[in-house]
């Protein structure tokens, strides 16, 4: 309990400080102006979404290899938390796009692959509700989760491999790309804060999944009595 409170306090402190930096520390972008400040939140959520789905992917592989319940619990927790970050990315992106592009949405490679990623993890969670037998549910969802993760490199690479309406990468984008040094620091700090929030949500969700496993065991015990 004390550990959870400490983690929550650290995450909230980082998130609050990053929000302050996004608005008051980062310099104003010359062409876009104020609307560019969505970038620090939107892109940081995107990076955190990749981390959460990567945790899910590793857990899915862990379950396939070891068949231990804790990998399944971590897998579903990573998927759910990743989906939350994915949803934030899909909502904040169009809010930025409308004043800048004049349209809310376009079916370019980055936007489409991100939306497909969202659909894949919704399908992952739906699949889990359809199978009652715990071992079968864990194995099938782990296999589906490994397949779903194949879209992550596609989302990452889409703005590097194809010409898209979505802006080209400003971090790790190669020669000719880049970000103002202060903007870069604010962005990395925002990413750190989002990762702290992701860990907080992941711990809470993992705790719930472990309790669910405990409830299933007691249920079986009760049926045996």
């Amino acid at each position, binding site marked *: 309990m004390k550990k959870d409170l400490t983690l929550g306090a650290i995450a909230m402190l980082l998130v609050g400080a990053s929000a302050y930096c996004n608005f008051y520390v980062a310099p104003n972008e010359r062409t876009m102006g104020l609307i560019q400040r969505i970038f620090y939140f939107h892109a940081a959520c995107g990076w955190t979404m990749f981390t959460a789905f990567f945790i899910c992917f590793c857990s899915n592989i862990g379950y396939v290899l070891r068949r231990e319940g804790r990998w399944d619990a971590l897998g579903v927790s990573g998927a759910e938390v990743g989906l939350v970050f994915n*949803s934030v990315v899909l909502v904040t992106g169009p809010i930025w796009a409308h*004043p800048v592009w004049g349209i809310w949405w376009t079916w370019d490679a980055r936007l489409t692959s991100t939306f497909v990623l969202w659909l894949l993890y919704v399908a992952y969670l739906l699949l889990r509700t359809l199978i009652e037998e715990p071992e079968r549910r864990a194995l099938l969802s782990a296999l589906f989760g490994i397949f779903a993760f194949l879209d992550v490199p596609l989302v990452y690479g889409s703005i590097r491999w194809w010409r898209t309406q979505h802006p080209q990468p400003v971090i790790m984008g190669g020669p000719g790309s880049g970000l103002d040094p202060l903007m870069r620091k604010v962005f990395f700090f925002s990413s750190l804060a989002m990762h702290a929030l992701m860990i907080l949500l992941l711990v809470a969700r993992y705790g719930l999944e472990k309790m669910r496993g405990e409830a299933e065991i007691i*249920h079986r015990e009760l049926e045996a009595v």
Partner: protein
Amino acid sequence: MKNLDSVFAAYLIGWGIFFVFYLTVARRTSALRADIERLKAAVNRGK
């Protein structure tokens, strides 16, 4: 302050999504905890 409303909306909706998710996890956890207590009591009664 051009586009202030859009920036405000993006941050507010984003934080709202995180808050609602945390709230649902907390609610599901407390409901499950109550369920486990009920099940444990039923097991003890059966023994």
